[in-house]
């Protein structure tokens, strides 16, 4: 194993691997450390949605848009394997009048932010997706939205990084980080010590444990999602379908929030140590995702839970997900589930990741992404510019850790 490096990246998920690739354009002296294997946590277990429609203006939308620009070039010029990228548009379907009213408000507001949303009625929904339930009243649709295979994508970035000279060490756990005068000195792993002046914490849901190693509180919490995948079925679905998190007894204000995907955060500034709120019954914390893979296995999710790093799946979650999926795509009724799993979306209180420099010299964070597949390439590009040229991250103040303390 290398004994020193310009940059040591911690985490072999999409953020770590994209950062490794973009940094490899400037320096051959990058090391990536991964406790398990490439894409073995959330980056290998999510729905691979590269969506614009769900983004908030500012940092979030800027990163998502830039990534949507970058992916086609990466596919044509960099990757040596197929990542199953398809730009087929994304659809959020709804069943009730309340949801429709909220959808109208959200569509108008997002259109004014320049996001090309369309409000579809039931006939238009069925024209695009004939197999969806006749109970669906309509959908919010964005033709810019794309999907990909998250595991293949992360691996493709890792391969490109390796080709660019990055040393990737899997099965390598970071045990501690040595600092001197509030600056990074070296990273100590179970396979030895690597001297470096820059550490990139891309440890996703484990980012706060890495932060503890330098005495920095990083408010990223593991948000547990459960999913299953069905057997192969005949082609019935063209694109990813998402549901809403709106309950029948929600107020219109709550419904709009449930649609525009902004966190229910109090008007106060989020604080370090602010714990994820207790969410109540599992049934109230479900959100539908149905993703057709290229092989026409259907991936379905999810429920949301804060239970630490407990990765078990549960009967209650999986049956809730199945019921939701069946209600939306009735043809799933007689289809077998072949596998189920849980993963952790790194969660922050305002839904924006934590990216950028910190009070510890050379300790950079890029974690807390609930939408890492969508932010990855753009975040990595910006981080490389920051590390190599000292260029500030666009809308960086919105993603900075200082938002929790200043």
């Amino acid at each position, binding site marked *: 194993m290398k004994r020193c490096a310009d940059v040591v990246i911690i985490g072999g998920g999409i953020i770590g691997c994209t950062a490794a690739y973009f940094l490899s354009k400037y320096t051959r002296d990058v090391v990536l450390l991964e406790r398990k294997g490439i894409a073995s946590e959330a980056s290998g277990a999510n729905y691979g949605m590269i969506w614009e429609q769900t983004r908030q203006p500012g940092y979030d939308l800027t990163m998502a848009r830039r990534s949507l620009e970058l992916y086609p070039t990466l596919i044509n010029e960099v990757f040596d394997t197929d990542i199953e990228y398809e730009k087929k548009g994304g659809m959020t379907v709804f069943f009730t009048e309340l949801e429709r009213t909220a959808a109208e408000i959200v569509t108008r507001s997002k259109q004014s932010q320049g996001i090309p949303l369309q409000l579809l009625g039931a006939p238009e929904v069925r024209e695009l997706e004939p197999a969806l339930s006749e109970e669906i009243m309509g959908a919010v649709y964005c033709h810019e939205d794309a999907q990909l295979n998250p595991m293949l994508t992360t691996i493709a970035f890792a391969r490109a990084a390796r080709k660019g000279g990055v040393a990737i060490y899997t099965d390598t756990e970071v045990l501690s980080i040595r600092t001197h005068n509030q600056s990074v000195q070296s990273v100590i792993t179970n396979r030895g010590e690597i001297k470096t002046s820059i550490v990139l914490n891309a440890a996703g849901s484990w980012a706060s444990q890495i932060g503890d190693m330098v005495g920095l509180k990083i408010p990223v919490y593991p948000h547990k999602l459960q999913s299953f995948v069905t057997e192969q079925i005949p082609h019935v679905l063209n694109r990813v379908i998402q549901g809403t998190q709106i309950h029948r007894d929600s107020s219109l204000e709550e419904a709009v929030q449930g649609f525009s995907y902004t966190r229910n955060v109090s008007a106060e500034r989020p604080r370090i140590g602010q714990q994820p709120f207790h969410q109540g019954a599992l049934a109230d914390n479900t959100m539908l995702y149905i993703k057709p893979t290229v092989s026409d296995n259907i991936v379905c999710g999810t429920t949301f839970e804060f239970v630490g790093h407990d990765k078990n*799946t*549960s*009967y209650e979650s*999986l049956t809730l997900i*199945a019921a939701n999926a069946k209600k939306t795509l009735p043809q799933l*009724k007689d289809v*077998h*589930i072949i*596998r*189920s799993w849980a993963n952790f979306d790194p969660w922050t209180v305002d839904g924006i990741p934590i990216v950028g420099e910190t009070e510890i010299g050379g300790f950079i964070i890029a974690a807390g992404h609930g939408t890492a597949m969508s932010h990855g390439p753009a975040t990595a590009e910006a981080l490389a510019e920051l590390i190599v040229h000292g260029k500030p991250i666009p809308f960086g103040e919105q993603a900075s850790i200082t938002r929790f303390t200043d």
Partner: protein
Amino acid sequence: METELAIVGSGPAGLAAAIEAAKTGVKVTIIDENPRPGGQLFKQIHKFFGSEKHKAGIRGIDIGHELLEQCEKLNVQIFLRTEVWAVFDNGKALGLKHANNTTEKLNTRKLILATGAIENPLAFPGWTLPGVLGAGATQTLMNLHRVLPGQRVLMVGTGNVGLIVSYQLLQAGADVVAAIDILPQIGGWGVHASKIRRLGIPILTSHTIKEAFGNNEVKGAVIARVGQDNKVIPETERTLEIDTICIAVGLSPMAELAQSAGCQTIHIAELGGWTPMHNKRMETTIKGIYVAGDVCGVEEASTAMEEGKISGIAAAESLGYLQRGKAKELMKERQESLNALRAGPFATQSKLGKEKLIERFHKC
């Protein structure tokens, strides 16, 4: 729904485990996706080999009836046409899908996975044509459903399954044109091989299938001799006019449920591939989850029953239905019986495989 011991699979291992545990008073629930219990026993119309205490001389079908009768007497609950779609909480709960398409959670204190094995496929040009089928599937069609899959058959593979099914095809009125094997020697027991040879079936060793042809179904196959490198020797090809190709190239443990439950697996070629690790009590790397039978190494029905009994005794003991001393004594008997079964010259491989498996369990 609640039970004390859930057993997935009602083949010889699962049924033997159920009887052993239920005898001590354990409440046992068996789940099987098939419409009838018994696993592969009811298609085994041939007599078993070995010593008398291992049911030698008795046909699989009769053993099946005997086991089911005992289960009934002991009030073992059996859910048929019921699928297990997930294992939760380290084996303490199962997701079931019943025959009527409803789902249910089965809470259990202990779990035995006796899911058996699946036939290996063999890929060659034409392998997806109707008429190419597994030898085990052929046996099920003939002996359970009374359907003869074809008239002129090529058997690929001369292990015991290939030899026995060739004989049963003859008995059922089909013509077995040849039994071939890529290895230079016959894989199965001499007694089975000489029986089908006497009846005129040529056994061609060092032979492979090059392709199957036909538009909508198998019309014929090309076979050829192979050299020591297992490659086809040019100009040794022969075309056979046949309508059925039976593939008998071994079995692999069906370890998916064990894997998804989180049991650690290990690849052991002698046992058929990826296999959950277990100790002498048949307990996996997850406490309270046991395995028995082909799922933890492809062997015989007789060994599967012994392993089933051991797992049943172990589960009963850990549930408090058996005193430690008594359990130890019972398990010792079963272990000796297993050792005797694996002492034969044909069981050397599986004995080696099992030793490796148990050794690895204790290392991890």
